[in-house]
Protein backbone atom coordinates (compact mmCIF):
# COMPACT_ATOMS: atom_id res chain seq x y z
CA UNK A 1 0.00 0.00 0.00
CA UNK A 2 2.79 2.37 0.96
CA UNK A 3 4.58 1.56 -2.27
CA UNK A 4 1.45 2.35 -4.25
CA UNK A 5 0.94 5.61 -2.38
CA UNK A 6 4.41 6.77 -3.32
CA UNK A 7 3.90 5.56 -6.85
CA UNK A 8 0.53 7.28 -7.39
CA UNK A 9 0.54 10.19 -5.02
CA UNK A 10 -0.62 12.45 -7.85
CA UNK A 11 -3.86 10.56 -8.44
CA UNK A 12 -4.46 10.21 -4.68
CA UNK A 13 -3.84 13.90 -4.13
CA UNK A 14 -6.33 14.56 -6.92
CA UNK A 15 -8.94 12.46 -5.13
CA UNK A 16 -8.22 14.31 -1.87
CA UNK A 17 -8.57 17.73 -3.51
CA UNK A 18 -11.72 16.64 -5.29
CA UNK A 19 -13.12 15.56 -1.92
CA UNK A 20 -12.04 18.81 -0.32
CA UNK A 21 -13.82 20.85 -2.96
CA UNK A 22 -16.95 18.72 -2.76
CA UNK A 23 -16.95 19.01 1.05
CA UNK A 24 -16.47 22.78 0.75
CA UNK A 25 -19.47 23.10 -1.51
CA UNK A 26 -21.63 20.59 0.36
CA UNK A 27 -22.09 22.85 3.42
CA UNK A 28 -23.90 25.57 1.52
CA UNK A 29 -25.27 23.42 -1.31
CA UNK A 30 -28.99 23.35 -1.60
CA UNK A 31 -29.29 20.15 -3.59
CA UNK A 32 -31.23 17.16 -2.41
CA UNK A 33 -29.20 14.91 -0.07
CA UNK A 34 -29.12 11.14 -0.25
CA UNK A 35 -31.76 9.52 1.94
CA UNK A 36 -30.82 7.61 5.07
CA UNK A 37 -31.90 4.30 3.57
CA UNK A 38 -29.69 4.90 0.54
CA UNK A 39 -26.87 5.94 2.85
CA UNK A 40 -27.12 2.63 4.65
CA UNK A 41 -27.08 0.65 1.43
CA UNK A 42 -24.13 2.63 0.15
CA UNK A 43 -22.27 2.12 3.42
CA UNK A 44 -22.99 -1.57 3.19
CA UNK A 45 -21.71 -1.64 -0.39
CA UNK A 46 -18.55 0.20 0.70
CA UNK A 47 -18.02 -2.24 3.56
CA UNK A 48 -18.48 -5.17 1.17
CA UNK A 49 -15.92 -3.71 -1.23
CA UNK A 50 -13.44 -3.13 1.62
CA UNK A 51 -13.99 -6.71 2.78
CA UNK A 52 -13.42 -7.98 -0.76
CA UNK A 53 -10.23 -5.97 -0.93
CA UNK A 54 -8.90 -7.15 2.42
CA UNK A 55 -9.64 -10.78 1.74
CA UNK A 56 -8.06 -10.44 -1.71
CA UNK A 57 -10.84 -12.44 -3.33
CA UNK A 58 -10.86 -10.35 -6.49
CA UNK A 59 -8.03 -11.61 -8.67
CA UNK A 60 -5.52 -9.91 -10.97
CA UNK A 61 -6.14 -6.52 -12.51
CA UNK A 62 -9.67 -6.26 -11.08
CA UNK A 63 -8.23 -6.67 -7.62
CA UNK A 64 -5.71 -3.92 -8.27
CA UNK A 65 -8.41 -1.61 -9.69
CA UNK A 66 -10.61 -2.28 -6.64
CA UNK A 67 -7.76 -1.39 -4.26
CA UNK A 68 -7.02 1.74 -6.25
CA UNK A 69 -10.68 2.79 -6.17
CA UNK A 70 -11.02 2.19 -2.45
CA UNK A 71 -7.88 4.22 -1.72
CA UNK A 72 -9.05 7.07 -3.89
CA UNK A 73 -12.54 6.86 -2.40
CA UNK A 74 -11.18 6.88 1.15
CA UNK A 75 -9.11 9.96 0.42
CA UNK A 76 -12.10 11.53 -1.31
CA UNK A 77 -14.22 11.01 1.81
CA UNK A 78 -11.41 12.36 3.97
CA UNK A 79 -11.13 15.40 1.71
CA UNK A 80 -14.90 15.88 1.89
CA UNK A 81 -14.84 15.75 5.67
CA UNK A 82 -11.99 18.27 5.91
CA UNK A 83 -13.62 20.55 3.35
CA UNK A 84 -17.02 20.50 5.01
CA UNK A 85 -15.59 21.00 8.43
CA UNK A 86 -13.43 23.93 7.32
CA UNK A 87 -16.29 25.56 5.42
CA UNK A 88 -18.55 25.15 8.43
CA UNK A 89 -15.89 26.74 10.61
CA UNK A 90 -15.43 29.64 8.21
CA UNK A 91 -19.20 30.19 7.91
CA UNK A 92 -19.77 30.06 11.68
CA UNK A 93 -16.92 32.55 12.27
CA UNK A 94 -18.24 35.05 9.75
CA UNK A 95 -21.84 34.99 11.03
CA UNK A 96 -21.29 37.07 14.24
CA UNK A 97 -19.44 39.65 12.17
CA UNK A 98 -22.42 40.10 9.83
Amino acid at each position, binding site marked *: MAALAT*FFWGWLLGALLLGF*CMGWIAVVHRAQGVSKVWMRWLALLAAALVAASLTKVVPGRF*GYWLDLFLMMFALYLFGCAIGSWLRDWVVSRSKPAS
Partner: protein
Amino acid sequence: MHGLFKWSSKWWPGVIPLVILWGLAAWSSTAKVEGDLAVRANAALKDTVLDKRRISVDGRDVTFAANAFSEGGRSSAVTSVEAVSGVRLVNDETRLVAEAKPYVWSAERDVVRVTLGGNSPLPSSKGKLMEAAKASLGGVEVVDQMGLARGAPPRFDAAALLLLDQIGKLKDGKITLTGTQVNLAGMARDLGGREAIAAALKNLPEGYSVAANDIEAPPYVFQAYKDPVAVTLTLTGYVPDNNVHAALVAAAGRKFFSEKVVDNLKASVGAPSGFAAAVVPALGALSRLSTGTLVVSDREVKLSGDALYDAAAGQIRGGLGKDFPQGWQYKAEISVKPASAPVDPTVCQQLFSEILSKGKIRFESGKSEIVADSAGLLDRLIETAMRCPSATIEIAGHTDSDGDEAANQTLSEKRAQAVMDDLVRAGLPPDRFIPVGYGSTQPIAGNDTEDGKAQNRRIEFVVK
Protein backbone atom coordinates in the same frame (compact mmCIF):
# COMPACT_ATOMS: atom_id res chain seq x y z
CA MET B 1 -20.45 15.35 14.21
CA HIS B 2 -24.11 15.56 13.37
CA GLY B 3 -23.20 18.25 10.87
CA LEU B 4 -20.70 15.98 9.20
CA PHE B 5 -23.34 13.31 8.76
CA LYS B 6 -25.76 15.91 7.32
CA TRP B 7 -23.22 17.25 4.88
CA SER B 8 -22.11 13.78 3.82
CA SER B 9 -25.49 13.19 2.23
CA LYS B 10 -24.51 15.92 -0.25
CA TRP B 11 -21.05 14.59 -1.10
CA TRP B 12 -22.33 12.23 -3.80
CA PRO B 13 -22.00 14.55 -6.83
CA GLY B 14 -18.21 14.44 -6.43
CA VAL B 15 -18.23 10.66 -6.85
CA ILE B 16 -18.89 11.11 -10.59
CA PRO B 17 -15.59 12.97 -11.28
CA LEU B 18 -13.91 10.62 -8.78
CA VAL B 19 -14.94 7.63 -10.85
CA ILE B 20 -13.62 9.38 -13.97
CA LEU B 21 -10.38 10.12 -12.14
CA TRP B 22 -10.18 6.50 -11.02
CA GLY B 23 -10.74 5.29 -14.57
CA LEU B 24 -7.91 7.50 -15.81
CA ALA B 25 -5.62 6.36 -12.99
CA ALA B 26 -6.37 2.70 -13.70
CA TRP B 27 -5.90 3.15 -17.45
CA SER B 28 -2.56 4.91 -17.15
CA SER B 29 -1.05 3.06 -14.21
CA THR B 30 -1.82 -0.64 -14.69
CA ALA B 31 0.95 -1.42 -17.19
CA LYS B 32 3.43 0.69 -15.21
CA VAL B 33 2.66 -1.07 -11.93
CA GLU B 34 2.92 -4.49 -13.56
CA GLY B 35 6.23 -3.62 -15.20
CA ASP B 36 7.65 -2.20 -11.99
CA LEU B 37 6.64 -5.24 -9.95
CA ALA B 38 8.08 -7.64 -12.53
CA VAL B 39 11.42 -5.81 -12.45
CA ARG B 40 11.56 -5.76 -8.67
CA ALA B 41 10.45 -9.38 -8.32
CA ASN B 42 13.19 -10.48 -10.74
CA ALA B 43 15.70 -8.34 -8.88
CA ALA B 44 14.71 -10.01 -5.61
CA LEU B 45 15.52 -13.41 -7.18
CA LYS B 46 18.82 -12.26 -8.61
CA ASP B 47 20.96 -14.38 -6.30
CA THR B 48 18.63 -17.38 -6.16
CA VAL B 49 19.56 -20.41 -8.27
CA LEU B 50 16.50 -21.54 -10.20
CA ASP B 51 15.79 -23.17 -13.51
CA LYS B 52 13.11 -22.12 -16.00
CA ARG B 53 12.14 -19.07 -13.93
CA ARG B 54 9.08 -17.28 -15.21
CA ILE B 55 7.44 -14.27 -13.58
CA SER B 56 4.23 -12.73 -14.87
CA VAL B 57 2.36 -9.91 -13.18
CA ASP B 58 -1.38 -9.36 -13.45
CA GLY B 59 -2.34 -6.17 -11.61
CA ARG B 60 -0.41 -6.63 -8.37
CA ASP B 61 -0.63 -10.42 -8.41
CA VAL B 62 2.60 -12.22 -9.33
CA THR B 63 2.55 -15.66 -10.92
CA PHE B 64 5.89 -17.22 -10.10
CA ALA B 65 6.93 -20.44 -11.83
CA ALA B 66 10.38 -21.99 -11.49
CA ASN B 67 12.23 -25.24 -10.90
CA ALA B 68 14.22 -25.15 -7.70
CA PHE B 69 17.14 -27.36 -6.74
CA SER B 70 16.18 -27.79 -3.07
CA GLU B 71 13.12 -27.36 -0.90
CA GLY B 72 14.85 -24.63 1.10
CA GLY B 73 15.77 -22.77 -2.07
CA ARG B 74 12.23 -23.08 -3.36
CA SER B 75 10.53 -21.68 -0.25
CA SER B 76 13.06 -18.89 0.17
CA ALA B 77 12.53 -17.85 -3.45
CA VAL B 78 8.77 -17.66 -2.90
CA THR B 79 9.30 -15.65 0.28
CA SER B 80 11.58 -13.23 -1.57
CA VAL B 81 8.90 -12.57 -4.16
CA GLU B 82 6.20 -12.17 -1.49
CA ALA B 83 8.42 -9.64 0.27
CA VAL B 84 8.61 -7.34 -2.76
CA SER B 85 6.68 -4.23 -1.71
CA GLY B 86 3.50 -3.69 -3.72
CA VAL B 87 2.95 -7.39 -4.41
CA ARG B 88 -0.54 -8.36 -3.32
CA LEU B 89 -0.57 -12.11 -3.98
CA VAL B 90 1.94 -14.67 -5.21
CA ASN B 91 0.59 -17.55 -7.26
CA ASP B 92 3.20 -20.13 -6.40
CA GLU B 93 3.83 -22.43 -9.35
CA THR B 94 7.32 -23.44 -8.29
CA ARG B 95 8.46 -27.05 -8.31
CA LEU B 96 11.51 -29.01 -7.39
CA VAL B 97 13.78 -30.14 -10.23
CA ALA B 98 13.28 -33.84 -10.91
CA GLU B 99 15.61 -36.27 -9.20
CA ALA B 100 17.58 -38.58 -11.51
CA LYS B 101 18.24 -42.15 -10.50
CA PRO B 102 20.69 -43.43 -11.56
CA TYR B 103 22.49 -40.14 -12.07
CA VAL B 104 24.05 -40.29 -15.55
CA TRP B 105 26.38 -37.80 -17.21
CA SER B 106 28.23 -38.36 -20.47
CA ALA B 107 30.68 -36.77 -22.87
CA GLU B 108 30.85 -38.14 -26.39
CA ARG B 109 33.38 -37.24 -29.03
CA ASP B 110 33.05 -37.88 -32.74
CA VAL B 111 34.95 -36.50 -35.70
CA VAL B 112 33.64 -32.95 -35.55
CA ARG B 113 32.16 -32.32 -32.13
CA VAL B 114 31.94 -33.14 -28.47
CA THR B 115 28.45 -33.65 -27.06
CA LEU B 116 27.86 -33.31 -23.34
CA GLY B 117 24.73 -35.18 -22.28
CA GLY B 118 22.94 -36.59 -19.25
CA ASN B 119 22.37 -34.62 -16.10
CA SER B 120 24.03 -31.81 -14.27
CA PRO B 121 23.09 -30.77 -10.72
CA LEU B 122 23.09 -26.97 -11.12
CA PRO B 123 23.15 -24.43 -13.92
CA SER B 124 26.49 -23.22 -12.58
CA SER B 125 28.11 -26.66 -12.82
CA LYS B 126 26.62 -27.05 -16.27
CA GLY B 127 28.20 -23.75 -17.31
CA LYS B 128 31.48 -24.74 -15.69
CA LEU B 129 31.54 -28.01 -17.62
CA MET B 130 30.78 -26.27 -20.91
CA GLU B 131 33.51 -23.72 -20.33
CA ALA B 132 36.02 -26.37 -19.35
CA ALA B 133 35.12 -28.41 -22.45
CA LYS B 134 35.60 -25.41 -24.73
CA ALA B 135 38.88 -24.48 -23.07
CA SER B 136 40.40 -27.95 -23.16
CA LEU B 137 39.20 -28.86 -26.66
CA GLY B 138 40.42 -25.80 -28.50
CA GLY B 139 38.38 -25.16 -31.63
CA VAL B 140 36.22 -28.28 -31.44
CA GLU B 141 32.48 -27.62 -31.40
CA VAL B 142 30.92 -28.43 -28.02
CA VAL B 143 27.21 -29.28 -27.95
CA ASP B 144 25.30 -28.96 -24.69
CA GLN B 145 22.57 -31.57 -24.31
CA MET B 146 22.77 -31.70 -20.53
CA GLY B 147 19.61 -31.50 -18.50
CA LEU B 148 19.30 -30.46 -14.87
CA ALA B 149 18.44 -32.98 -12.21
CA ARG B 150 18.87 -33.45 -8.49
CA GLY B 151 20.58 -36.45 -6.96
CA ALA B 152 24.17 -35.97 -8.16
CA PRO B 153 26.74 -37.89 -6.16
CA PRO B 154 29.08 -35.80 -3.99
CA ARG B 155 32.07 -34.18 -5.76
CA PHE B 156 30.27 -34.59 -9.09
CA ASP B 157 31.83 -31.44 -10.58
CA ALA B 158 35.39 -32.50 -9.81
CA ALA B 159 34.81 -35.96 -11.30
CA ALA B 160 33.11 -34.62 -14.44
CA LEU B 161 35.85 -32.01 -14.98
CA LEU B 162 38.53 -34.68 -14.73
CA LEU B 163 36.65 -36.86 -17.22
CA LEU B 164 36.24 -33.88 -19.58
CA ASP B 165 40.01 -33.51 -19.58
CA GLN B 166 40.23 -37.10 -20.82
CA ILE B 167 37.82 -36.56 -23.71
CA GLY B 168 40.47 -34.26 -25.20
CA LYS B 169 42.82 -37.24 -25.39
CA LEU B 170 40.34 -39.27 -27.44
CA LYS B 171 39.99 -39.30 -31.21
CA ASP B 172 36.48 -40.61 -30.78
CA GLY B 173 34.62 -42.32 -27.99
CA LYS B 174 32.36 -41.84 -25.02
CA ILE B 175 32.89 -41.35 -21.33
CA THR B 176 29.89 -42.08 -19.15
CA LEU B 177 29.53 -41.41 -15.46
CA THR B 178 26.73 -43.48 -13.93
CA GLY B 179 26.40 -42.66 -10.26
CA THR B 180 30.01 -42.98 -9.16
CA GLN B 181 30.98 -45.51 -11.83
CA VAL B 182 32.99 -44.42 -14.87
CA ASN B 183 32.78 -46.18 -18.24
CA LEU B 184 35.15 -45.30 -21.05
CA ALA B 185 35.17 -46.48 -24.65
CA GLY B 186 36.80 -45.27 -27.84
CA MET B 187 40.09 -44.65 -29.53
CA ALA B 188 42.93 -42.60 -28.07
CA ARG B 189 44.05 -39.66 -30.18
CA ASP B 190 47.77 -40.20 -29.79
CA LEU B 191 50.08 -43.03 -28.95
CA GLY B 192 50.37 -43.08 -25.21
CA GLY B 193 46.91 -41.51 -24.86
CA ARG B 194 45.43 -44.68 -23.41
CA GLU B 195 48.14 -44.83 -20.76
CA ALA B 196 47.74 -41.10 -20.00
CA ILE B 197 43.99 -41.55 -19.49
CA ALA B 198 44.50 -44.58 -17.24
CA ALA B 199 46.99 -42.56 -15.16
CA ALA B 200 44.65 -39.57 -14.89
CA LEU B 201 41.76 -41.77 -13.75
CA LYS B 202 43.72 -42.57 -10.61
CA ASN B 203 43.02 -38.99 -9.53
CA LEU B 204 39.23 -39.45 -9.56
CA PRO B 205 37.64 -38.00 -6.41
CA GLU B 206 37.10 -40.28 -3.46
CA GLY B 207 34.23 -42.71 -3.92
CA TYR B 208 34.44 -42.77 -7.72
CA SER B 209 35.72 -45.81 -9.57
CA VAL B 210 36.27 -47.05 -13.11
CA ALA B 211 33.75 -49.74 -14.07
CA ALA B 212 35.14 -50.31 -17.57
CA ASN B 213 37.99 -48.77 -19.50
CA ASP B 214 37.75 -49.89 -23.12
CA ILE B 215 39.93 -47.19 -24.62
CA GLU B 216 41.97 -48.48 -27.54
CA ALA B 217 45.34 -47.19 -28.59
CA PRO B 218 45.95 -46.20 -32.21
CA PRO B 219 48.33 -48.52 -34.10
CA TYR B 220 52.02 -47.90 -33.56
CA VAL B 221 53.14 -47.12 -37.10
CA PHE B 222 56.60 -46.88 -38.57
CA GLN B 223 57.09 -46.36 -42.30
CA ALA B 224 60.06 -46.28 -44.60
CA TYR B 225 59.90 -45.43 -48.30
CA LYS B 226 62.74 -45.94 -50.68
CA ASP B 227 62.44 -43.54 -53.59
CA PRO B 228 64.78 -44.45 -56.49
CA VAL B 229 64.11 -41.21 -58.36
CA ALA B 230 64.87 -38.78 -55.53
CA VAL B 231 67.45 -41.30 -54.19
CA THR B 232 66.05 -40.91 -50.68
CA LEU B 233 64.91 -43.10 -47.86
CA THR B 234 62.09 -41.39 -45.98
CA LEU B 235 61.41 -42.55 -42.42
CA THR B 236 58.10 -41.54 -40.86
CA GLY B 237 56.04 -42.59 -37.84
CA TYR B 238 57.11 -43.42 -34.31
CA VAL B 239 60.06 -44.83 -32.47
CA PRO B 240 60.08 -45.74 -28.76
CA ASP B 241 62.83 -43.37 -27.64
CA ASN B 242 65.80 -41.30 -28.76
CA ASN B 243 68.26 -44.18 -28.43
CA VAL B 244 66.25 -46.40 -30.76
CA HIS B 245 65.76 -43.40 -33.01
CA ALA B 246 69.50 -42.85 -33.32
CA ALA B 247 70.15 -46.58 -33.77
CA LEU B 248 67.58 -46.86 -36.57
CA VAL B 249 68.86 -43.83 -38.42
CA ALA B 250 72.41 -45.13 -38.11
CA ALA B 251 71.35 -48.58 -39.36
CA ALA B 252 69.53 -46.94 -42.28
CA GLY B 253 72.68 -44.96 -43.10
CA ARG B 254 74.73 -48.17 -43.23
CA LYS B 255 72.20 -50.20 -45.21
CA PHE B 256 71.22 -47.55 -47.73
CA PHE B 257 74.65 -46.69 -49.08
CA SER B 258 73.57 -44.25 -51.80
CA GLU B 259 70.26 -42.87 -50.50
CA LYS B 260 69.89 -39.75 -48.42
CA VAL B 261 67.97 -40.58 -45.23
CA VAL B 262 65.06 -38.20 -44.61
CA ASP B 263 64.24 -38.55 -40.93
CA ASN B 264 60.69 -37.60 -39.95
CA LEU B 265 60.43 -39.95 -36.97
CA LYS B 266 58.90 -38.96 -33.66
CA ALA B 267 59.53 -40.57 -30.31
CA SER B 268 56.46 -41.96 -28.55
CA VAL B 269 55.60 -44.50 -25.94
CA GLY B 270 53.41 -47.52 -26.78
CA ALA B 271 55.81 -49.41 -29.07
CA PRO B 272 55.31 -53.18 -29.24
CA SER B 273 58.09 -55.18 -27.61
CA GLY B 274 60.95 -56.10 -29.91
CA PHE B 275 60.34 -53.06 -32.07
CA ALA B 276 63.97 -52.31 -32.90
CA ALA B 277 64.82 -56.00 -33.33
CA ALA B 278 62.12 -56.27 -36.00
CA VAL B 279 62.55 -52.93 -37.75
CA VAL B 280 66.34 -53.16 -38.30
CA PRO B 281 66.20 -56.40 -40.37
CA ALA B 282 63.09 -55.10 -42.13
CA LEU B 283 65.07 -52.02 -43.17
CA GLY B 284 67.78 -54.38 -44.43
CA ALA B 285 65.21 -56.13 -46.61
CA LEU B 286 63.95 -52.77 -47.90
CA SER B 287 67.52 -51.78 -48.77
CA ARG B 288 67.64 -54.69 -51.21
CA LEU B 289 64.67 -53.42 -53.20
CA SER B 290 64.89 -51.11 -56.17
CA THR B 291 61.86 -49.23 -54.91
CA GLY B 292 59.74 -50.20 -51.98
CA THR B 293 57.75 -49.36 -48.91
CA LEU B 294 58.04 -50.78 -45.43
CA VAL B 295 55.04 -50.36 -43.13
CA VAL B 296 55.28 -51.54 -39.53
CA SER B 297 51.90 -51.33 -37.79
CA ASP B 298 51.90 -52.67 -34.23
CA ARG B 299 53.41 -56.16 -34.70
CA GLU B 300 52.74 -56.47 -38.39
CA VAL B 301 55.46 -55.78 -40.93
CA LYS B 302 54.48 -55.22 -44.55
CA LEU B 303 57.12 -54.94 -47.19
CA SER B 304 56.26 -54.23 -50.79
CA GLY B 305 58.34 -53.29 -53.79
CA ASP B 306 60.58 -54.53 -56.56
CA ALA B 307 63.58 -56.75 -56.00
CA LEU B 308 66.54 -56.36 -58.35
CA TYR B 309 66.53 -60.00 -59.54
CA ASP B 310 64.63 -63.27 -59.03
CA ALA B 311 66.79 -64.90 -56.40
CA ALA B 312 66.77 -61.74 -54.29
CA ALA B 313 62.95 -61.65 -54.41
CA GLY B 314 62.84 -65.21 -53.13
CA GLN B 315 65.33 -64.51 -50.33
CA ILE B 316 63.43 -61.40 -49.22
CA ARG B 317 60.05 -63.17 -49.26
CA GLY B 318 61.27 -66.15 -47.31
CA GLY B 319 64.13 -64.92 -45.23
CA LEU B 320 62.96 -61.95 -43.26
CA GLY B 321 60.30 -63.48 -41.02
CA LYS B 322 62.90 -65.73 -39.39
CA ASP B 323 64.76 -62.77 -37.92
CA PHE B 324 61.69 -61.38 -36.17
CA PRO B 325 60.96 -61.58 -32.46
CA GLN B 326 58.14 -63.80 -31.21
CA GLY B 327 54.65 -62.67 -32.13
CA TRP B 328 55.54 -60.54 -35.10
CA GLN B 329 53.96 -61.09 -38.49
CA TYR B 330 55.56 -60.52 -41.84
CA LYS B 331 53.83 -59.92 -45.16
CA ALA B 332 55.87 -59.44 -48.28
CA GLU B 333 54.56 -58.34 -51.64
CA ILE B 334 57.70 -58.50 -53.66
CA SER B 335 57.83 -58.39 -57.45
CA VAL B 336 60.92 -58.34 -59.59
CA LYS B 337 62.07 -55.23 -61.39
CA PRO B 338 62.27 -55.77 -65.19
CA ALA B 339 65.83 -56.60 -66.12
CA SER B 340 67.90 -53.62 -67.28
CA ALA B 341 69.27 -53.57 -70.83
CA PRO B 342 72.62 -55.41 -71.28
CA VAL B 343 75.70 -53.22 -71.53
CA ASP B 344 79.16 -53.82 -72.88
CA PRO B 345 82.04 -54.62 -70.50
CA THR B 346 83.40 -51.07 -70.44
CA VAL B 347 80.11 -49.64 -69.23
CA CYS B 348 79.85 -52.51 -66.79
CA GLN B 349 83.21 -51.54 -65.29
CA GLN B 350 82.02 -47.94 -64.97
CA LEU B 351 78.86 -49.07 -63.22
CA PHE B 352 80.85 -51.24 -60.74
CA SER B 353 83.21 -48.38 -59.97
CA GLU B 354 80.34 -45.99 -59.51
CA ILE B 355 78.53 -48.30 -57.08
CA LEU B 356 81.67 -49.09 -55.10
CA SER B 357 82.56 -45.42 -54.88
CA LYS B 358 79.31 -44.84 -52.98
CA GLY B 359 79.57 -47.78 -50.63
CA LYS B 360 81.90 -50.55 -49.58
CA ILE B 361 81.29 -54.22 -48.98
CA ARG B 362 81.80 -54.65 -45.24
CA PHE B 363 83.01 -57.71 -43.40
CA GLU B 364 83.06 -58.80 -39.81
CA SER B 365 86.24 -57.48 -38.24
CA GLY B 366 89.21 -59.72 -39.14
CA LYS B 367 86.86 -62.25 -40.76
CA SER B 368 85.56 -63.01 -44.19
CA GLU B 369 81.82 -62.93 -43.35
CA ILE B 370 79.99 -60.17 -45.17
CA VAL B 371 77.89 -58.14 -42.75
CA ALA B 372 74.14 -57.99 -43.32
CA ASP B 373 74.31 -54.23 -43.87
CA SER B 374 76.01 -54.81 -47.23
CA ALA B 375 73.15 -56.90 -48.69
CA GLY B 376 71.71 -53.92 -50.62
CA LEU B 377 75.08 -53.03 -52.08
CA LEU B 378 75.74 -56.63 -53.10
CA ASP B 379 72.35 -56.84 -54.83
CA ARG B 380 73.27 -53.78 -56.90
CA LEU B 381 76.61 -55.35 -57.84
CA ILE B 382 74.87 -58.62 -58.76
CA GLU B 383 72.32 -56.81 -60.88
CA THR B 384 75.12 -55.00 -62.70
CA ALA B 385 77.02 -58.26 -63.25
CA MET B 386 73.84 -59.69 -64.82
CA ARG B 387 73.83 -56.83 -67.33
CA CYS B 388 77.15 -57.86 -68.84
CA PRO B 389 76.82 -61.65 -69.21
CA SER B 390 79.80 -61.97 -71.50
CA ALA B 391 82.32 -60.22 -69.22
CA THR B 392 84.72 -62.02 -66.93
CA ILE B 393 85.13 -60.20 -63.64
CA GLU B 394 88.00 -60.22 -61.21
CA ILE B 395 86.92 -59.81 -57.61
CA ALA B 396 89.90 -58.25 -55.91
CA GLY B 397 90.31 -58.26 -52.13
CA HIS B 398 92.59 -55.74 -50.44
CA THR B 399 93.55 -55.11 -46.81
CA ASP B 400 95.40 -52.43 -44.92
CA SER B 401 98.96 -52.97 -43.72
CA ASP B 402 98.06 -53.78 -40.10
CA GLY B 403 99.07 -57.21 -38.91
CA ASP B 404 100.93 -60.05 -40.53
CA GLU B 405 101.30 -59.80 -44.33
CA ALA B 406 100.58 -63.49 -44.86
CA ALA B 407 97.44 -63.27 -42.75
CA ASN B 408 96.34 -60.19 -44.69
CA GLN B 409 96.92 -62.06 -47.93
CA THR B 410 94.79 -64.97 -46.75
CA LEU B 411 92.07 -62.67 -45.44
CA SER B 412 91.88 -60.75 -48.70
CA GLU B 413 91.57 -64.00 -50.64
CA LYS B 414 88.86 -65.32 -48.35
CA ARG B 415 86.91 -62.09 -48.55
CA ALA B 416 87.10 -62.06 -52.36
CA GLN B 417 85.91 -65.68 -52.30
CA ALA B 418 83.03 -64.81 -49.97
CA VAL B 419 81.85 -62.11 -52.35
CA MET B 420 82.08 -64.50 -55.25
CA ASP B 421 80.07 -67.13 -53.35
CA ASP B 422 77.36 -64.55 -52.90
CA LEU B 423 77.28 -63.80 -56.63
CA VAL B 424 77.09 -67.49 -57.41
CA ARG B 425 74.23 -67.97 -54.91
CA ALA B 426 72.39 -65.25 -56.83
CA GLY B 427 72.48 -67.46 -59.90
CA LEU B 428 75.54 -66.13 -61.74
CA PRO B 429 77.85 -68.74 -63.30
CA PRO B 430 81.02 -69.24 -61.22
CA ASP B 431 83.26 -69.35 -64.25
CA ARG B 432 82.69 -65.63 -64.87
CA PHE B 433 84.47 -64.63 -61.67
CA ILE B 434 88.08 -64.77 -60.57
CA PRO B 435 88.52 -64.16 -56.84
CA VAL B 436 91.96 -62.67 -56.15
CA GLY B 437 93.53 -61.55 -52.86
CA TYR B 438 96.15 -58.83 -52.92
CA GLY B 439 96.72 -58.41 -49.20
CA SER B 440 98.09 -54.97 -48.53
CA THR B 441 100.24 -54.80 -51.65
CA GLN B 442 98.04 -52.34 -53.58
CA PRO B 443 97.14 -49.51 -51.25
CA ILE B 444 95.13 -46.58 -52.67
CA ALA B 445 95.86 -44.36 -49.67
CA GLY B 446 98.51 -44.02 -46.98
CA ASN B 447 98.39 -46.65 -44.24
CA ASP B 448 99.49 -44.11 -41.65
CA THR B 449 96.02 -42.80 -40.88
CA GLU B 450 92.84 -44.59 -39.87
CA ASP B 451 91.06 -42.99 -42.81
CA GLY B 452 93.71 -44.18 -45.21
CA LYS B 453 93.56 -47.72 -43.79
CA ALA B 454 89.80 -47.76 -44.13
CA GLN B 455 90.12 -46.80 -47.78
CA ASN B 456 92.66 -49.57 -48.34
CA ARG B 457 90.36 -52.27 -46.88
CA ARG B 458 88.21 -52.86 -49.95
CA ILE B 459 86.77 -55.18 -52.60
CA GLU B 460 87.11 -54.11 -56.23
CA PHE B 461 85.35 -55.46 -59.31
CA VAL B 462 87.60 -55.42 -62.37
CA VAL B 463 86.09 -56.36 -65.70
CA LYS B 464 88.58 -58.29 -67.78
